């Protein structure tokens, strides 16, 4: 497996959010502050990498017919671990992410990568796939958070940048999430088609 190509796929050409369109719900729901985005991104990255490695390691003994059930058990195990650890050691992040941590179980990025990548590839490749896809997800979250927190709330990681009366409050509401995500997807598609034309 070519690590450089995997990195490029995870971050750009096969970006889980902007190209594969996976995990959109959590992307819109939690990207209201940088700290939320970072907490969620890192949680997903860890769970994705861990479940990718385990699923890849057990792929030969998993009967084909019950593979989805097996994936979910493995993923749910890791998600619950991360949820408990967050609650115990970083309660502030656990509280602000709330139900979206347990919901990582059904985040389609993780099940999607299990099905399309780690079930067919070796442990090392799956490990890097988890890291790079997780990074791709985290970067999109951070971009969304940056735009929504800066323009919507006028702060960055809690520090006030824009005076209180100016921010566009609607950006922190769900509708703002749809708008920002739409613009990001459009920009990504434009950049991708542009680079294809160049070749």
């Amino acid at each position, binding site marked *: 497996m070519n690590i450089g190509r995997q990195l490029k796929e995870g971050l750009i050409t096969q970006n889980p959010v902007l190209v594969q369109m996976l995990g959109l719900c959590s992307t819109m729901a939690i990207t209201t502050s940088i700290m939320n985005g970072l907490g969620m991104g890192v949680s997903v990255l860890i769970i994705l990498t861990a479940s990718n490695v385990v699923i890849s390691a057990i792929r030969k003994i998993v009967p084909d017919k019950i593979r989805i059930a097996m994936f979910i*058990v493995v993923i749910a*195990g890791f998600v619950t*671990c991360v949820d408990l650890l967050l609650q115990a050691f970083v309660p502030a992040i656990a509280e602000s992410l709330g139900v979206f941590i347990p919901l990582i179980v059904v985040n389609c990025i993780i099940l999607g990568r299990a099905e399309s990548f780690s079930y067919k590839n070796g442990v090392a490749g799956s490990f890097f796939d988890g890291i790079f896809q997780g990074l791709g997800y985290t970067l999109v979250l951070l971009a969304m958070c940056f735009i929504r927190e800066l323009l919507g709330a006028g702060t960055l990681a809690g520090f006030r940048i824009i005076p209180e009366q100016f921010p566009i*409050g609607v950006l922190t509401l769900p509708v703002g999430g749809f708008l920002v995500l739409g613009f990001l997807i459009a920009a990504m598609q434009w950049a991708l088609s542009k680079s294809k034309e160049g070749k």
Partner: protein
Amino acid sequence: MSNDVKTKEKVHMDPQYIIKLTVTLLVTCMVVAAALGGVNAITADKIAATNWAKTVEAMKKVAPDATDFSDPLPITEDMTAAAGSVALDSVYEAQAGGQSVGYAIKVVASGSQGKIEMMVGVDGEGAVTGVSIVKNSETAGIGSKVMNNENTAKGVGVLSQFEGKTAADGALTVGSNVDAISGATVSTRGVTNGVSAALAVAGVMG
């Protein structure tokens, strides 16, 4: 795969294969459950301690005279009935120097976007000593103003206005004896219901 099921054909599954599926799934679940048990053993105490610290902090805010709080008191059917449509979560006795100075009552009211978990302090005379929001999902910039105790048009914090109210003041109603934050009437109403319920619960407890 030799065991591929062809659609539209009758499914033939070798019993041995079915047993293999069951055992694989069972073993996986057991391994995962054991791992989770381990993680839970490490984190359970810490999570409980964090939650208790948060509860005490919320109780201190609503019962400023108290120095100590009891463990949760048993909740009777009368108390649940008194709370009406608002869910009664837990009741703690506020103490100062070993003497009871009132109750800290945690209730869950409904706001505009979901549940509002709130702590209400009631003193020995049945007057509200404070209201604080533990957890909510009200709209940022609108309902959140109520949650953050911003001032109403009369210049009093929307949560602070409940201080001193007793059951004798009659039913608390937004618009008559409770002021709402403009645009956040539903959130204010949710909080008001919570306070009324807490007063009713304190009334039942005597």
